[in-house]
């Protein structure tokens, strides 16, 4: 019984972390899949959103839910401006230029946040209702983790519906699978990409805010977790909502379990796992045909 409780609480913790990874990374997977754009600044949008959310709660007295919406809107708006002004010029450019642009953006984001609010970690004060523990019958667990899991599931279901059942979702899927063909059919790829980019960055902002409680929130955030976001996308496949969902859960649980039982070599194991996986399936575990 004790063992069962242990396993359950570990799974819950891992799944909660996985949900945050999913919320942040899904936009990255879609933008990379659509345009093949190497966006290393994606974590920067998660950080910006996190900062807006924490500021809104701690200083402007907003509720958690309202702050999350605000973070989504502001980050999405900022990302649209950057996309139109900067990203759109480099869609057909060499990878190196895309890497340089986005690394540059990360630096600018880190420096601006440091200038405005200093280098310290920004603590997220959860509302009272989300603190403490909740009794799930088998096991008592932190309320916030359960809320995270529920939020993640809701968002995943919403995204799945939007992806599989709406016109825009169908257009995105078509463009990911074959961009030229989709363009010949009259789909406006540039507009589609702007929408996807904004939504993806907004989601990253939500992830930044929701995950701030255990990932922390300081100016180094975009670089610290960049490799994790990229691994989730690489394992899940480019332009795949469901793939990224499973990959994020897998990495989240794996990371949680390994940190507990193999605190020394856990991270190394994940890197090794990713390398082997990508060599076996360059398109990712859940990705479609290699391109």
């Amino acid at each position, binding site marked *: 019984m004790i063992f069962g409780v242990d396993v359950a609480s570990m799974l819950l913790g891992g799944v909660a972390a996985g949900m945050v990874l999913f919320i942040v990374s899904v936009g990255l997977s879609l933008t*990379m899949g659509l345009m*093949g754009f*190497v966006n290393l600044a994606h974590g920067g949008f998660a950080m910006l959103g996190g900062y807006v959310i924490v500021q809104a709660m701690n200083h402007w007295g907003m509720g958690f839910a309202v702050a999350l919406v605000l973070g989504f809107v502001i980050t999405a708006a900022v990302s649209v401006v950057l996309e139109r002004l*900067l990203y759109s*010029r*480099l869609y057909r*450019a*060499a*990878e*190196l*230029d*895309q*890497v*340089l*642009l986005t*690394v*540059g*953006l*990360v*630096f*600018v*984001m*880190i*420096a*601006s946040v*440091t*200038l405005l609010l200093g280098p310290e970690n920004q603590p997220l004060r959860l509302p009272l209702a989300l603190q403490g523990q909740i009794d799930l019958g088998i096991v008592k667990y932190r309320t916030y983790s359960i809320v995270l899991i529920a939020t993640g599931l809701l968002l995943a279901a919403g995204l799945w519906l939007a992806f599989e059942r709406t016109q825009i979702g169908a257009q995105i899927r078509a463009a990911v699978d074959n961009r030229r063909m989709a363009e010949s059919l009259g789909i406006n790829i540039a507009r589609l990409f702007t929408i996807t980019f904004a939504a993806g960055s907004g989601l990253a902002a939500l992830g930044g805010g929701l995950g701030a409680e255990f990932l922390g929130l300081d100016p180094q955030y975009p*670089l610290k977790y*960049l*490799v994790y976001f*990229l*691994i989730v996308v*690489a394992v899940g496949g*480019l332009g795949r909502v469901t793939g990224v969902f499973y990959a994020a859960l897998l990495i989240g649980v794996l990371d949680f379990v390994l940190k507990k039982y193999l605190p*020394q*070599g856990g*991270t*190394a194991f994940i*890197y*090794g796992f*990713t*390398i082997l996986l*990508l*060599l076996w399936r*360059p398109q990712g575990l859940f990705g479609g045909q290699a391109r």
Partner: protein
Amino acid sequence: MTPAPPSGVLNRPAALVLAGRHRIRLWETVPWTLAIALYVAFPKYLAFGTELLITILFALSLDLVLGYAGIVTLGHAAFFGAGAYTVGILAKQGLWSEPITGLLLAAAMAAAVGLGSGLVLLRTRGLTLLMLTLCTMALLEEAANLAHVYTGGFDGLDSVPITPLFGRFEFNPLYPTTQYLYVLAVLFACFAFVRTLVYSPFGQSLTGIRENLLRMRAVGAPVRTRLVLCYTLSAAIAGIAGGIWAQANAYVNLGTLGLDRAATVLIILALGGHGRLYGAFIGAAAYMSLSHFLSKVYPTGWQLGLGLLLVVIALFANNGILGVVETLAHTLRRRRTGTPASPPGLR
């Protein structure tokens, strides 16, 4: 001696450029003259100069894979770290502390890592390759962290004992005159090697692979073998840079393997101009002097400026400082003579 090309061909500007571009020009002595001038005139800045020369060497090794073979990698520090730790561990364990042979061992170790990873990684391209280079480096960093019995873990290895060069010239961390000249000599040797390599038929085929992979396959070039060989050679040079860094500073830490170092060298090369050999020199000099004087006084402002600079380079100056200079010179020449000169892309 290559047979002389048929006359007539050489009258065309493009052919002239192609036939003569491997020749050593007068201005190519400038960086070396400056390096010696720094030694004579500014003995106070020799520590900075040593760091600068090592950075040039590291950037030069990246230029080989990135600028010539077109392999975009985010994990080049893996080889720098492999070389640094080879020197550090061998000396710390009392196994080997002679500097020159130590560098050869560092090169061999880094080349082995490069060959091993290159054989598997270079089957992929694009984003997957970028991810794999990043993960390989992260894996090495974790491994170095785990093997703290040998590597010192997070704290690294300090006071690495290095025997005097040729048994006579000691490495003094406070007055790095020996280090400076030693690094300069090693840089010169490596540069001569890389310069010869990129103008050889092998180097030409690398450029071909960068420009048009499909066509190189179609003409029957052994693409993967060439790429792996280039990757291994570049890894060996990066290993030398890492090894010499460990010798000059007498310490090694996890930072030699980190994303920071890999990103910095990429930025330096992009700043100077990739695929041009001297981009490594210009980029390292510009970046290192700016960061040396600005990053300590205004660390945040430095990062902001660097970020903006990168955005500008990515958008407007694809080939860095040297690319801009070349385009300007090209425009000027055309204005003066009124005839279109050879396109600046030809190099």
